[in-house]
């Protein structure tokens, strides 16, 4: 009854914005910038996507401008944390707060409404096989990010910068440059995540519509150990747990239980994965000698 194609689609829809944002977070993490501002960047992406699509009639321009706007917004983190050496966590929290205020303010000034902007004439993204093109793009992005990080010259340098900016600097690699690059790419990816949420999952803008997805993305980054494929698996786990949770309400589980389900499942997965790693590590290091 549970494992039907609807469930899978539901999971994939829940997954896409989280995955895109988490990929951005993972790249930042690898570059040594803890990006906790995914939520805010995503929200700004949502608004820009809707506004642009509304005024130009093209959802594609909406996607593009969302990526650009969120990237521009991510400069706050880049300048604050990289150039001015501020605390990335505080900056991220402030950016999330700022994005809520800013988008609500813009919603009021641009559309003259409070709360929600929705109009039958607003163009959303077309669906291919039931999913928005950005969903497919997000899977491609996982592959590209994995390849770039593990094999490309940029990826190597980025990882080095994240591990020891000092050492990178002595080899003529500017840590700031790579960290800016990482933060900006996370901006682009969060912008896409926002566009997906506002023009793909639904076709409207609501104040604070990201509703904690950026935080889930942060969890996915930590859970996936900032590896693109790990992040994909973490986001998938989340999406599935959420989709199953929705259905469990149907069989009478209280809402509070289904709300908690994705987090409990994630924690369980963490236990299992670390337990396995732990079991493996001692034996392998023992074999070395």
């Amino acid at each position, binding site marked *: 009854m549970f494992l039907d194609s609807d469930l899978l689609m539901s999971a994939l829809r829940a997954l896409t914005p989280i995955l895109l944002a988490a990929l951005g977070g993972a790249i930042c993490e690898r570059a040594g910038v803890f990006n906790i501002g995914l939520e805010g960047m995503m929200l700004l992406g949502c608004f820009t996507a809707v506004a642009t699509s509304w005024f130009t009639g093209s959802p594609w321009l909406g996607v593009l401008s969302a990526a650009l706007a969120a990237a521009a917004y991510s400069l706050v983190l880049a300048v604050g944390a990289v150039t001015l050496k501020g605390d990335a966590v505080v900056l991220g929290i402030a950016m999330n707060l700022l994005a809520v205020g800013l988008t609500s303010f813009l919603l009021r000034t641009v559309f003259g409404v*409070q709360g929600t902007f929705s109009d*039958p004439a607003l163009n959303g993204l077309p669906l291919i096989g039931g999913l928005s093109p950005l969903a497919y793009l997000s899977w491609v992005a996982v592959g590209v990010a994995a390849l770039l990080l593990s094999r490309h010259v940029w990826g190597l340098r980025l990882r080095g910068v994240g591990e020891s900016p000092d050492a990178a600097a002595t080899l003529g690699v500017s840590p700031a440059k790579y960290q800016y690059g990482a933060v900006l790419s996370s901006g682009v990816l969060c912008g896409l995540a926002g566009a997906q949420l506002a023009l793909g999952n*639904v076709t*409207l803008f609501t*104040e*604070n519509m990201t*509703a904690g997805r950026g935080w889930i993305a942060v969890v996915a980054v930590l859970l996936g150990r900032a590896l693109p494929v790990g992040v994909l698996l973490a986001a998938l786990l989340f999406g599935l747990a959420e989709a199953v949770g929705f259905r469990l309400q*149907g069989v009478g589980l209280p*809402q509070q239980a289904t709300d908690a389900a994705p987090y409990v499942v994630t924690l369980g997965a963490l236990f299992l994965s670390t337990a396995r790693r732990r079991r493996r590590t001692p034996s392998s290091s023992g074999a070395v000698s």
Partner: protein
Amino acid sequence: NAAAKKDTGTAASGSSGKSFTLVTPDAVGQNEFLKLAVTGVEAAAKEHDGTQHVYQSTDAASQQQNVQAAVDAKPDVIVLVGFEFADVVAQQARRNPGQRFLLVDACTAKPFTNVSCAVFREHEGVFLAGAEAGLLSRSGKVGAVDVLDTPQFRRYSDPFAAGAKKVAPGTTTGTRFVGGQSPFDDSARAKEQAGTLLSQGYDQVMAAAAAGNYGVFEAAKAKGAFAYGVDVNQCPSSPGTVVDNVIKRTDVAVQKGIDAVLGGKAGTTVSYGLKEGGISLTGLDAGVDSSQCVIARHKDVLTKVKALRDQIVSGGLAVDDPAAR
């Protein structure tokens, strides 16, 4: 707080001296009925040639601060919308016997001479919407998407099911709750929750998901199913999908409440339901033909629903109130 008094005055510069302060429990943008409350207090200010202020809260802490600030400013009437205020109004009413309060949507546990209440019997309207759904459903499955599993929101799902079953006894019913980290704003999640109902063959969905309603409408539209809105006429946002709306005339309750308080009738509780016209359906109102609601094409259904309404109004049919349990 002198500064507060000086540079306020958002409306009519007229000076009958009447002043009203509306305190909302959440940001006004979040709920249609809060927007209506604002309309109501504005209308009252106009009517009485006075001034009005709106203090928007976001959480329990700011609710208390705003009520305190309102009390400090001593307007003629302080209007509070939402059951969140029941405790704090009781406290302030006791401390400030001279201050008059109008509490909308709830009432204090103990009566106070300076507190008037306006409460709604949403369940009556929802019951009628459910009846429409029961009559219109082809699959025999009608459901609801609520923000949270709370008694207040149960008022939008349980009577909906009851209404459907009243007219079509074999109807299957189900309810989903949006939940999550930000249940009032999460239209994507609301859309998914509606989707789980629709994928099981439900074809009529009551949408009580606050800002998430738009997500419910989108889901219904995609599956060719039908949805029901709340508070105001939400049909234009998704014509052809939204069948009808449970209208809650918060504006009327606010304006009439202020009139009554100013008219010396403080300390009373007025309950608004179908009978008082505080609750109704778009389909039963005058402008139904221009409402863009699906129900306008189903006069036969409306006839049956009108009959039910008359029974409820006359007291012949009692609708169970989930929040009273």
